[in-house]
């Protein structure tokens, strides 16, 4: 493909404002009359609220409003509304340490904090459940009294005949794998500003990954019409899923603003962010894999229990998605999946980069290595033998179009020097290499029903292009990618494109940035809009230059007739058609991604995914047998991009995801005691710093067949999915110890080595 723009590592269009400090994030916005809101949160994991006395708080000088449950709508909320289970403010009882009980708005932060301290809440502590075993015991205290048990939502999937396959296959491996709660730790904490105007419209400034969805959620919980809600994003200091579902601070700020008649800002402290913010769902997984002598994996049986925390949020959606990825990898003909969500009295989970897939892949790819050991074959060979087909449909219905899986494996293996390092003896006895595969969506999913995107382009009379897109840039570079796509199609340079976004009053309805969908969905819409604008431009040029439309060429902002030496600026053409004919030039693009005929969201399963993305990571580690420290020396991450839109940005996504994967595998862990998070600071919740990083080789593997713009698919999440099992597999290669639980911390390594030595 002959392109000028696609694939090049062009600098981001928003890099300069960020590097000069000009870029305004929501937390930087200034507004006249702004009040500071603060939330009073439950100190108990489970308790009945007996009484709340706000009198002293309300009378404090500088306090403008104090609210409790009786001052807010009684509506319940969850991401799936039919599973709604959370109020804006707790009325009867609190269900986790951090549950919102009351809120104040005051003239400054110190006053707001003082006011919180003056609110007198009398609690009656209740027995609580902190893990899934406790929660599922018969007679366990119920987190939600209107439910029969803490085991709330569940799903089962069945393809083929797993029992028969398990009985008839040549090798079976089974095991239990456990992953844990980790925090997104965006550098910008969760925050918002809410303000009503004189027409009773609410504007919310917040860092929402899905502004249009957030608008619906806010309207729903407040019980107001959607047309009265506007969500405005600013530059966004990270998301990773934490800002996908509405946070209660938004309706709380809205109510405070309503009462005071002034804009109200609420910002999490970092401690609040760690201790009460939403987490990745901890999964406990019981997994069986069965294979034939020839290496074919013929059956996989997974029973998964997800710890929801105190409320549903994205729990069901996460488990659903986990099941689709589980079913698709390696096209195993017999699949059983059972997913169970369980309430506990802890902070709730939510979407987190990978969306259940990193957890499940830790189990499946660890077990695959265990299978390889049992079968006496090389783990790379076993995986190569089971590579997903290049085209076609898997047994669970996943439609694979464009699959570079084998290329990814070979690239990763070569990069880590698999052959040499797996067979080296003693030269470095405590080093090991391991690898892991993954599949993920490269284009979001159809499972929320509507899955489309729209974009608008208009040309000004001096030739600049305005692109209006709903693609949400939380740092991953979506706006730059959209601009590149538009620039490529129109034949202009990147600096000619001005991207407008971030305002639900302006942008078309869209589901937002999650599931690595922006490039595929929004990108296709932008491409269509650019094609539409281009054809109008070509027509205008043909008329002005008295040529056939088919002979009009556009490149680098210049238009000319094929064979002619006279090149015109875009601006000339646009000016001419506007002034002579009164015809402004613009384009509309729409990309509608429908479920295949005959399927519904419920029955489609993996057919909900428009585009799959495969990848492989190979890792080399070194273990210090005296301290148990696992040091990652090198990661080779080979991931599909279909067509790479921006090489630098794609690498950046992979590298950042690998860093999070290393944190997930080795370093990060929220430590609870009686439901309370103990490590609510960066000091004690360690994320990788610059000195912790290994050498990372990020390889973008291109392949044909994807229906994304110029053949591209999403790369936002895949980089995080296989890192943990690749590390676990490398650790096994290094010291012969298999870890079934994350994180693999030093003391666990030492203990395991001691056991092994016995």
């Amino acid at each position: 493909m002959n392109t000028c723009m696609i694939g090049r590592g062009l600098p981001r269009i928003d890099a300069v404002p960020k590097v000069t400090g000009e870029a305004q994030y929501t937390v930087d916005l200034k507004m006249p009359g702004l009040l500071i809101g603060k939330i009073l949160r439950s100190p108990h994991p489970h308790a009945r609220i007996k009484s709340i006395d706000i009198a002293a708080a309300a009378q404090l000088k500088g306090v403008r409003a104090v609210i409790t449950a009786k001052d807010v709508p009684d509506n319940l909320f969850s991401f799936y509304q039919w599973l709604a289970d959370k109020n804006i403010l707790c009325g009867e009882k609190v269900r986790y340490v951090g549950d919102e009980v009351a809120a104040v708005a005051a003239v400054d932060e110190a006053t707001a904090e003082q006011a919180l301290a003056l609110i007198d809440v009398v609690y009656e502590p209740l027995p609580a459940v902190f893990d899934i075993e406790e929660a599922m015991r018969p007679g366990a205290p119920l987190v939600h009294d209107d439910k029969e048990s803490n085991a709330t939502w569940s799903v089962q999937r069945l393809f083929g005949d797993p029992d028969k396959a398990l009985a008839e296959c040549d090798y079976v491996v089974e095991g239990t794998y456990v992953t844990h709660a980790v925090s997104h730790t965006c550098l910008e904490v969760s925050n918002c500003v809410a303000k009503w105007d004189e027409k009773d419209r609410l504007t919310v400034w917040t860092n929402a990954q899905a502004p249009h969805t957030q608008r619906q959620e806010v309207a729903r919980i407040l019980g107001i019409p959607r047309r009265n809600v506007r969500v405005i994003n600013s530059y966004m200091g990270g998301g990773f899923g934490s800002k996908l579902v509405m946070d209660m601070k938004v309706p709380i700020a809205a109510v405070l603003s309503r009462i005071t008649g002034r804009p109200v800002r609420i910002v999490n402290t970092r401690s609040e962010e760690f201790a009460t913010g939403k987490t990745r769902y901890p999964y406990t997984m019981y997994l069986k894999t069965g294979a034939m002598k020839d290496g074919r994996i013929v059956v996989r049986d997974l029973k998964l229990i997800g710890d929801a925390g105190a409320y549903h949020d994205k729990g069901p959606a996460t488990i659903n998605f986990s099941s689709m990825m589980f079913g698709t990898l390696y096209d195993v003909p017999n699949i059983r999946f059972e997913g169970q969500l369980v309430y506990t009295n802890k902070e709730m989970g939510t979407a987190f980069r990978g969306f259940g897939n990193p957890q499940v892949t830790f189990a499946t790819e660890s077990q695959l290595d265990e299978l390889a050991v049992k079968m006496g074959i090389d783990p790379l060979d076993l995986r190569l033998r089971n590579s997903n087909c290049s085209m076609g449909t898997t047994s669970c219905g996943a439609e694979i179009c464009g699959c570079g899986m084998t290329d990814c494996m070979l690239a990763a293996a070569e990069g880590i020097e698999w052959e040499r390092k797996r067979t080296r003896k003693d030269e470095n006895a405590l080093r090991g290499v391991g690898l892991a595969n993954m599949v993920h969506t490269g284009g979001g999913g159809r499972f929320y029903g509507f899955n489309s995107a729209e974009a608008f382009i208009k040309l000004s009379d001096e030739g600049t292009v305005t692109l209006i897109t709903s693609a949400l840039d939380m740092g991953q570079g979506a706006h730059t990618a959209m601009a590149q796509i538009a620039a490529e199609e129109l034949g202009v340079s990147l600096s000619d494109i001005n991207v407008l976004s971030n305002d639900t009053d302006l942008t078309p309805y869209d589901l937002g940035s999650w599931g690595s969908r922006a490039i595929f969905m929004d990108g296709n819409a932008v491409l269509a809009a650019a094609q539409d604008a281009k054809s109008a431009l070509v027509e205008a040029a043909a008329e002005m230059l008295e040529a056939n439309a088919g002979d009009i060429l556009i490149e680098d902002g210049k238009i000319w007739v094929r064979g002619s030496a006279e090149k015109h600026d875009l601006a000339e053409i646009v000016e001419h058609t506007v002034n002579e004919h009164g015809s402004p030039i613009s384009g509309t693009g729409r990309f509608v991604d429908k479920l295949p005929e005959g399927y519904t969201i419920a029955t489609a399963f993996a057919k909900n995914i428009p585009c799959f993305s495969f990848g492989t990571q190979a890792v080399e580690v070194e273990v210090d047998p005296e301290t148990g420290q696992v040091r990652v020396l090198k990661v080779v991450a080979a991931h599909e991009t279909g067509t790479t839109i921006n090489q630098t940005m794609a690498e950046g996504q992979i590298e950042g995801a690998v860093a999070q994967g290393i944190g997930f595998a080795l370093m990060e862990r929220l430590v609870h005691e009686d439901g309370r998070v103990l490590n609510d600071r960066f000091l004690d919740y360690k994320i990788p710093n610059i000195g912790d990083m290994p050498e990372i080789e990020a390889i973008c593997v291109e392949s044909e067949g994807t229906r994304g713009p110029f053949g591209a698919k999403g790369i936002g999440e895949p980089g995080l999915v296989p890192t943990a099992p690749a590390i676990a597999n490398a650790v096994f290669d290094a010291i012969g110890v298999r870890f079934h639980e994350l994180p693999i911390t030093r003391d666990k390594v030492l203990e395991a080595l001691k056991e092994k030595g016995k």
Partner: protein
Amino acid sequence: MLAGSEGPVKALAGGTDLLVQMKLGSLQPHALVSLRDVPGLDFVRLDEDGGLVIGAVATLAALENSPDVKAAFPAIAEAASYVGSVQVRSRATVGGNLCNAAPSADMAPILIACGAAAVITDGRAERNVPLEDFFAGPGETALEPGELLKAIAVPPSPEASFGKYFKSFRSAMDCCTVGVAVCAAFAPGSMIVRDVRLALGAVAPTPIRARASEKMLIGRALDGTLIARASVAAADEAQPITDLRASAEYRKILVEVLSRRALTAAHAWAQKGAAA
């Protein structure tokens, strides 16, 4: 000013411990007295006899980067470079690190191992306290009301001596999980240990010396077997707690490992000298 006041008054040096504790609510002093502009407290200098005097308000950055310290007491400069980040070290002071008196105070082990003394003043008179006796408990020092730490006095390095600080998992902002510092003086040209101090951080209510371990080593020729025994002894002397960061058992293991590494490094250094 510190003595006479209506409520608790805290001296403020770099603020990298004190301000954090105030923000977290664990300390609520009535007033802060800034020591930064008090003249004569922020120096780092070598004496004619080769000893090092560090003003209480000297920053860790000053200590880390001082050419004098790097030349004459490299282990101290290196230990300073292990604390926090560049930003923290620009402001954090030696005195602050010691007076905050966390069991994990990063500067304590190496200074104790070097035989340092705390120079304490009440504005009129001065008194010296061996640094290992300066710590009374977590967050508590030997300072009486109205007294300030004025400086740390480090005696000149003995002939043929080796010193180094070993900190577990040197990652920035790491509140030391375990720290071991050694200062060993050898009989010139031999492996015989003339004198040794082995100081442990973060494994007791205060930084401590592993005295039983030291006794085992003095007067003996340092070798692998002795190193192993002395390291086990050091681990036995440690009384670590189990907390969020590590278990007591794991900390004891680390004491043994780091003591072994420290003594092995001393051994390697002495071997070069003995061979020469």
